[in-house]
């Protein structure tokens, strides 16, 4: 299997676009499922998260991206490495879902959220109405911040995936007596190009693309931070 030639049925000439398409597929699915799961927990009662959700969330956040990357590499190899963006999207969604769900459950289970929930219930709203309207309206910024952080993690995960695939591809090429040096500009993912650029810093184009991904991840984290606001600054006007 060659990484640069046979990996995907979609064009792999621009690694950044493939990364973005994989994240673009995985992110909405992950966030939608995580949101529904978190809301169902919040709607059930006072927003107390079940121990299973918390445990899964901790595990999901603790799992290093390399685990995701290696898992995707195995799946890709087994499937003949077609539709790599879809394969990556599915694996990334599965890997980041527990963490995203747990983060949302924590948002919906905060003291402030619980107070809002009780207040709305005391005003005679039904639990479903409360969960869907009040929770979402109050937590919209936080939910978007979780989505941005999840996207950033997916971006990093996809980079690790590429490293794993590049390793597998290189080994295969070496076995088939292919040229030992990689064509850096045609590596599939920008993150992969970043790691490759570390060993071949002369390629400015590769470095530029890799820097773009780093900037993108930083922007996503920065936007998430901005949306969440300063955690210790009270907005209370006494």
């Amino acid at each position, binding site marked *: 299997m060659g990484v640069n030639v046979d990996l995907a049925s979609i064009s792999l000439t621009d690694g950044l676009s493939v990364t973005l398409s994989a994240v673009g597929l995985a992110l909405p699915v992950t966030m939608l499922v995580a949101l529904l799961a978190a809301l169902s927990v919040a709607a059930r009662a006072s927003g107390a998260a079940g121990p299973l959700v918390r445990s899964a969330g901790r595990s999901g956040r603790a799992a290093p991206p390399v685990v995701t990357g290696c898992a995707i590499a195995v799946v890709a190899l087994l499937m003949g490495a077609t539709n790599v963006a879809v394969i990556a999207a599915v694996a990334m969604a599965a890997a980041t879902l527990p963490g995203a769900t747990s983060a949302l459950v924590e948002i919906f289970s905060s003291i402030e959220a619980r*107070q809002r929930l009780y207040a709305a219930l005391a*005003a*005679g709203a039904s639990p479903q109405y409360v969960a869907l309207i009040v929770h979402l*309206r109050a937590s919209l910024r936080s939910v978007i911040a979780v989505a941005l952080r999840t996207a950033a993690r997916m971006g990093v995960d996809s980079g690790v995936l590429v490293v794993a695939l590049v390793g597998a591809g290189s080994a295969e090429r070496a076995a088939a007596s292919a040229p030992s040096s990689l064509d850096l500009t045609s590596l599939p993912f920008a993150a992969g190009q970043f790691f490759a650029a570390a060993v071949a810093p002369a390629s400015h184009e590769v470095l530029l693309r890799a820097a773009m991904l780093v900037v993108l991840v930083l922007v996503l984290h920065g936007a998430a931070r901005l949306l969440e606001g300063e955690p210790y600054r009270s907005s209370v006007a006494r």
Partner: protein
Amino acid sequence: MTGVRTVGQEAKLALADLRASRGSVEALRGITFTLPDATSLAVIGGAGSGKSVLLRAMCRMLDLDSEWRVSGSVKVDGEEVLGDAIDVARVRRKLGLVFSQPAVLPMSVFENVIFGLRAMGVRDPRALEDAYERAMRRVMLWEQLGRQQSKRPTDFSFEIRQRICIARAVALEPQALLLDDPCAALDPVATQTLEDMLSRLRRECTLVIATNNLQQAARLSDVTCFLERGDVVEIGDTPVLFSRPSDTRTEDFLAGRVS
């Protein structure tokens, strides 16, 4: 001990053998009393005496935690509110609960006040505006805040926010208002302002106020109930209970002696 108050008027609130427990802990042990219309009741007692649980049990907020078990009877205007077949949302509208922390909703002042009406299905803009004005006038906020209805409650002080929360409950025209230490988050000046408003409100609505502030209980209530470990130790007219308590435990509590 179970306290019973019988007055020659029809009871607005009637509690009979109300019990609440969570696991093996019994938080309320057979509370029984009746309260006439337009009467304010202060519930006093130490930490863990069951003041907040009593209020939450009455308006079915304990239903939110499946570990709570509630039994007995709570009647509002003769209508039972406990039981599986009861519309819980309707009960909560009849018994407006206000929390110690002002829990404003993430919407404008106007939307906060009419939140319960919208949840009930009221859609007529004119009716909603009328209800908003009425509620804001009753909590003495109309002059100050009535025209700033599009602002967020978080733009205002805790005291104003608490009054917005009370307006949200009042907008539903409840049979009784249950206030769980409503001044706990307020400074003395804000407490005084809120008490002035409650003093006016108590003339037109039945109030049940759980409070840790004995002076506030004396100022705001017609009847006072002293709870200890989920039991009613003593219940009676406020001036009498504060000046001549019939139980030594009440006397000790009022004097600040730890029993």
